[in-house]
């Protein structure tokens, strides 16, 4: 077994980590930093929602270059899958619990998990909530828009997000009247979605709100009503002119702060939560991104980079990642209506992020109640009876890969969950019957309660 301290980054010299040309260059395995099962699992935890054993073995054989390509551009026919799920989701949008349940079902079944990671990233970025919108069908439409644009161009995504009735309603911007520009909406647009806090002034907010006037929600659609647009001169980010919404977005995208904010958020989501990257690392990637706002290229650069593979276990799983990862690893399935509500209890209520800032994430996911709560959820998912049914069975997974004998099945699960990367005493205790339970279901529950399982 590899020493845990050697995985990913540790043989990289610290000065390399701050050198953008090394940090963002594609990772090429060598004797110092070999490609391994641990790094393959890392790639799948971040780029997907965790891997099953077959995916791990293929990724190990493929090497990082091909493994990343397969994640980004899967061979499976993704479009018909998503079209079918779009229809299921829409049909279930009459009830508030149908839409999150269908999203979770999609997360469990999708052949293109990286697209769902990005969709979740955008839901956390454009963090609007059904608690305010109170219309599941609109929320469903909003999420489908995020998915369609998740790996497209950010400028197009931003503009179409502002056309979503759910977004306008959540911002309190249902009616952007000439006489009453919507300051809260303009502030959210600048602070949360583009420039970031501290990158604009209060007069900029007023200018932005005035540029946005004329946009209304009526009959569940966004409309532009020219006579409600304030066509006077506005001051905005050091410029002056008769700006409208299109100009506003152009000016926001021109500011280097916008691309930098997105690169920083993407870094925290995909690379590491434990350190915030120095400006010198962010700037070159942001500058390249700002050329055309191509999200697929940006994500590909990140996922291939040396830095990405240095972020091993530097992130805490969200409740969704915790549960979906467990189910995907074991290649089973569970009921998702109940799952959506249990995940809400654990702090991640899909379609209802706490505030416009999204979920705080990181160490905020974990507290004295959430750890036993997660353990209890894993226990119920694996129980083989009860609310989650019987279609998640670690013994069946192990025997699918020829590991039916009790000892072999345990070794298999430890490899599948941790690729053997546990403290040596822990690993020995687990494999030598450190657990009182005879059942592989109980053993799986124990593995999902270990501190390392909460790390992405």
């Amino acid at each position, binding site marked *: 077994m590899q020493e845990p301290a050697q995985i990913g980054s540790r043989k990289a010299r610290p000065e390399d980590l701050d050198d953008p040309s090394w940090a963002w260059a594609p990772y090429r395995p060598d004797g110092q930093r070999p490609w391994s099962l641990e790094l393959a699992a890392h790639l799948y935890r971040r780029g997907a929602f965790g891997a099953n054993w077959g995916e791990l073995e293929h990724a190990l054989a493929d090497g990082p270059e091909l493994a990343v390509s397969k994640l980004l551009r899967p061979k499976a026919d993704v479009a018909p899958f998503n079209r079918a799920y779009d229809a299921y989701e829409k049909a279930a949008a009459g009830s508030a619990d149908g839409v999150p349940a269908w999203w979770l079902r999609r997360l469990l079944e999708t052949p293109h998990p990286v697209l769902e990671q990005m969709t979740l990233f955008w839901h956390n970025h454009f963090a609007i909530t059904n608690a305010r919108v109170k219309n599941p069908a609109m929320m469903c439409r909003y999420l489908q828009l995020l998915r369609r644009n998740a790996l497209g161009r950010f400028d197009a995504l931003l503009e179409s997000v502002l056309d979503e009735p759910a977004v306008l309603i959540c911002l309190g911007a249902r009616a952007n009247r000439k006489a009453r520009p919507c300051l809260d909406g303009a502030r959210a647009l600048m602070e949360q979605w583009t420039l970031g806090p501290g990158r604009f002034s209060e007069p900029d907010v007023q200018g932005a709100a005035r540029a946005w006037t004329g946009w209304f929600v009526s009959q569940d659609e966004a409309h532009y009503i020219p006579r409600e647009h304030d066509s006077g001169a506005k001051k905005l980010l050091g410029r002056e002119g008769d700006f409208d919404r299109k100009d506003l977005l152009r000016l926001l995208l021109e500011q280097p702060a916008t691309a930098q904010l997105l690169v920083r958020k993407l870094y925290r989501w995909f690379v590491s939560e*434990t350190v915030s990257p120095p400006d010198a690392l962010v700037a070159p990637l942001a500058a390249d991104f700002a050329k055309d706002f191509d999200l697929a290229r940006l994500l590909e650069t990140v996922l291939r980079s040396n830095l990405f593979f240095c972020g091993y276990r530097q992130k805490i799983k969200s409740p969704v990642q915790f549960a979906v990862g467990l189910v995907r690893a074991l290649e089973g399935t569970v009921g998702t209506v109940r799952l959506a509500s249990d995940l809400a209890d654990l702090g991640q209520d899909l379609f209802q992020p706490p505030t416009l800032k999204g979920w*705080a994430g990181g160490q905020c996911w974990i507290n004295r109640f959430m750890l036993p709560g997660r353990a209890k959820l894993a226990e119920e998912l694996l129980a083989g009876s009860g609310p989650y049914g019987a279609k998640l069975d670690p013994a069946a997974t192990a025997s699918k890969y020829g590991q039916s004998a009790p000892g072999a099945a345990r070794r298999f699960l430890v490899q599948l969950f941790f690729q053997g990367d546990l403290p040596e005493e822990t690993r020995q205790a687990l494999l030598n019957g450190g657990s009182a339970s005879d059942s592989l279901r109980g053993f799986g*529950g124990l593995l999902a*309660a*270990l501190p390392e399982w909460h790390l992405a």
Partner: protein
Amino acid sequence: MQTTRREFLRTALGASTMLAFSPVAPGFLGRTALAAAAQSQDRDSVLVVIQLSGGNDGLNTVVPYEDDAYHRNRPTLRLTAERVLKLESGLGLHPEMTALLRLYREGHLAIVQGVGYPDSNRDHEAAMRDWHTARPGETLTQTGWLGRAIDRACKTGQTDVPGVFLGPIPSPFGLQTEEAIVPAIKSSDQWLPAGEWAAASRLDPPGSTAGAPAGANPLPEFLRRATLDASAGAARLQAVRQGAAARGTDGYPDFPLARTLQSVAQFIRADLGIRIFFAELGGGGIGGFDTHAGQAANHGALLRELSESVAAFLEGLRRDRLLDRVWLMTFSEFGRTLSENGRHGTDHGAASPVFLAGGGLKGGLVGPHPSLTDLEANAPKFHTDFRRVYATVLDRWLGFDSLQVLGRKFSPLDLAV
């Protein structure tokens, strides 16, 4: 400052728990923890908030039984001098609240009269939201007043949860945070896994980080420590529950609110670092206190549940020598109209009284009863802004900075001993 004392204790206890907990069985954890909890009278203060959903009729809760205007306007609902439980100054409690009268006489109940806010809303949802956000009329406010207090009380790297909700309804907006995750406790075993969870902290305990390079990933060790803290806390809670089970009903009456408060007492005894508990009476939504018709029986039953549950809770705290650590506070989104509506009920009003109960509290009536001749659309006017009550519990009891939580300075009431 209370926080400093707590941190001192945490550090002191934390060091010993590290040594004691990792190799041993949960039973032993529980006993050690109980021994520690027994000496814990000087720990942190705790606030229990009880929401009375639906708009409680303050005039039939604290009754101005000598006021002619009261009797004139309430021909069928009025409570006469013979029936009320007399306090002082011509005021009496509803006859179903004998248990609260006892607390009042012992000096453990303060009644803040005429609590409300300017231009108060009379729509259930909007008014409740005003009380929850503590920012009346600001409909885009994204967090609750207790949620903001909880976010500020959370510290990076620690796993204490400063606030929880107990009850079968969705968590109220007052607890809405930006960052912290506030547990909603629907049943007593909901957060206790049955299986092998406790083994996780033994198999993979916090280890020495002495050899780790500077700047190494702090998350694995954070999670090991959190897993150990959480399983130690769960073991303490189990031990407290087992002890409680041996004592049967423990003097708690058979009401849902009483059972909820019994759980609260167990959480306090298990010493999990929870500072704020939120519970509800009336059933959430447009709750049982919304007595537009046939008020007398329903209102009496709810007040009886409130009174007996709160009294049993305080009695239990006293037995466990925890009374001086706890304040309990009630609130409702509005009071009700002075006059009856012709259906033996009352309609949405404005000001109403707030109860505060507990140790370390100056009991008695606070402020005058609102006038029944100078009304606002048929309802008593407020004289004490509800945010002054919030400021009191934040500044004077919890030791939080009310200015940060409320965004404005409200002068606290003189209630703390």
